[in-house]
């Protein structure tokens, strides 16, 4: 017998391999972008189109409670919405890999099991950063101006944290639905979800229980906090949720990530049933 005594790697080496494997898996997505640039382009330009549409569509008629320009109010909301759209990109990738047997192939390899997910995270976060850059450029082009650079960086941090949460939601839903019509449903249902938040309209402008719902919408904290950090009008008249926007902007994504990561792990194990 020649090579039967396999040494179990130590914790340091394991961590190193986990990182390398994740990079390798993410590199695969990057190679996809190179071969199919059209998909990347459409993904990045769709939020820009929406921004232009809403800026001109609602720009004139909307009054922001507490004063301020609607366009300045809208732009941070669109940043958040772009992060939410990421759920569908992640989902499509997961559905496709599972259908083609790639997921099973990865599962049978001696690579770090965390790397499949970590690689997905890296790739999707990278594409979101790219998309966000394009969107910011578009926002600057229509006349929006952020406040200081330090707080802008913090805003980006909060946005990416939210993207992470939606990434996990995407992984879970991708494992759940397994076909394109499921992706379509999620893609469309994002809209009512967004309208029930403060992305387009200030929560305080909504009637009674709806205002509460919009304030506590998982993205609402991020929207308000990003508006504050970027010096945009928040349009919100107070209330616990608004006052603790930054706390919510951190807490919601963390809770969502934990919940959906746990659900995904369970779902993943169910694949083995």
């Amino acid at each position, binding site marked *: *017998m020649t090579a039967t005594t396999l040494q*179990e790697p130590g914790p340091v080496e394991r961590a190193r391999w986990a990182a390398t494997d994740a990079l390798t898996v993410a590199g695969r997505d990057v*190679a996809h972008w190179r071969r199919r640039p059209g998909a990347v382009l459409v993904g990045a330009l769709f939020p820009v189109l929406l921004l232009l549409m809403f800026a001109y569509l609602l720009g004139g008629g909307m009054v922001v409670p507490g004063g301020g320009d609607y366009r300045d109010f809208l732009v941070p909301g669109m940043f958040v919405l772009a992060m939410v759209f990421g759920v569908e990109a992640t989902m499509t990738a997961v559905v496709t890999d599972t259908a083609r*047997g790639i997921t099973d*192939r990865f599962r049978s390899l001696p*690579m770090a099991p965390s790397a499949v997910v970590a690689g997905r995270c890296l790739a999707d976060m990278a594409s979101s950063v790219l998309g966000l850059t394009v969107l910011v450029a578009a926002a600057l082009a229509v006349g929006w101006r952020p406040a200081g650079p330090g707080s802008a960086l913090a805003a980006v941090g909060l946005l990416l944290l939210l993207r992470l949460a939606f990434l996990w939601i995407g992984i879970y839903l991708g494992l759940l639905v397994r076909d394109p019509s499921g992706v379509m449903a999620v893609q469309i249902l994002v809209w009512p979800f967004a309208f029930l938040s403060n992305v387009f309209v200030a929560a305080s402008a909504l009637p009674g229980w709806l205002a509460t719902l919009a304030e506590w919408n998982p993205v609402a904290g991020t929207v308000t906090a990003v508006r504050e950090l970027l010096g945009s009008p928040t349009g919100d008249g107070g209330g616990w949720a608004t006052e603790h926007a930054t706390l919510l902007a951190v807490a919601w994504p963390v809770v969502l990530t934990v919940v959906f990561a746990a659900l995904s792990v369970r779902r993943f194990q169910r694949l083995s049933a």
Partner: protein
Amino acid sequence: MTSAISLRGLTKRYGEKVVLDDVDLAVGHGAVCALLGPNGAGKTTAVRVLTTLTRPDGGRVEVAGVDVVRHPRAARRRIGLIGQQPAVDDVLAARENLVLFARLHHLDRRAAGARADELLEQVGLPGTGAQPVAEFSGGMRRRLDIAAGLVLAPLVLVLDEPTTGLDPAGRRDVWDAVRALVAGGTTVLLTTQYLEEAEQLADDVCVLDGGRVVARGTPRELTAAIGGDRLELVVTDPSRAAEAALLAERVAAAGAPEGADAGGERVVVPVSRRAGVVGAVVRALDEAGIAVDDVVLRPTTLDEAYLRITGRDRARTEVPA
């Protein structure tokens, strides 16, 4: 000394349906075991359990002494899998796929590239490395998938119908690759519908039917259990086949001849003893003036044994009119 692969009391249910029912199997280090059985007998499920893709409902499954349920990661480090459906990335080029999988086996960049080129050559895909897999035909995809499973010589290689859809040359390439791995100490479990493949490669054969092991042994043992040897001869003049069969039967004397085949000139006769039978038959035919093209004394083929074991040798249903 433990076995390289050991299944004990393996049981798996999907809802009410029992797919694997108390399956025991042991494969020694460096051996090749072929898992045979009709479509839907549970072969793929057994493969999935062994490769940690599916959890069993009962029993113990060990690979190189590692429990696959309790230590799936450690088990995966010892297993290579080539599944039934090609699992390669369509968007990437063929070589990019292999480099990706080589990198995930922790080869460095240079070694991964070199290994990818070697593998493309080995599975008969040289010069196609830059082509996106989306443009590949079914057979080419299959070859690439096999290459992806051979990146590193694993301790235990599991192949689920590896040559399905491959042409005869491709089949030989795969057999050569498997033999080379076995020579290097790898243990192999393969499922196949192609019994010649089992005869070519396997030291041991295990037949599953309805989720149970219905027969096990070396190909030789299985065929011997079904009944002795066969004398096969091809006569030059097909019109004298029947006469030759009668003569051979009288000389070999172990039951009625199994008749002529589609071409009409091949005669198969069961024989009771090996010694001298070829000579005796040839002499008898020669005296009768019947010229012979081929004469082979061969054991019962695995095909014949298999059909008998799964009890379906008479499964010839009526033909739709």
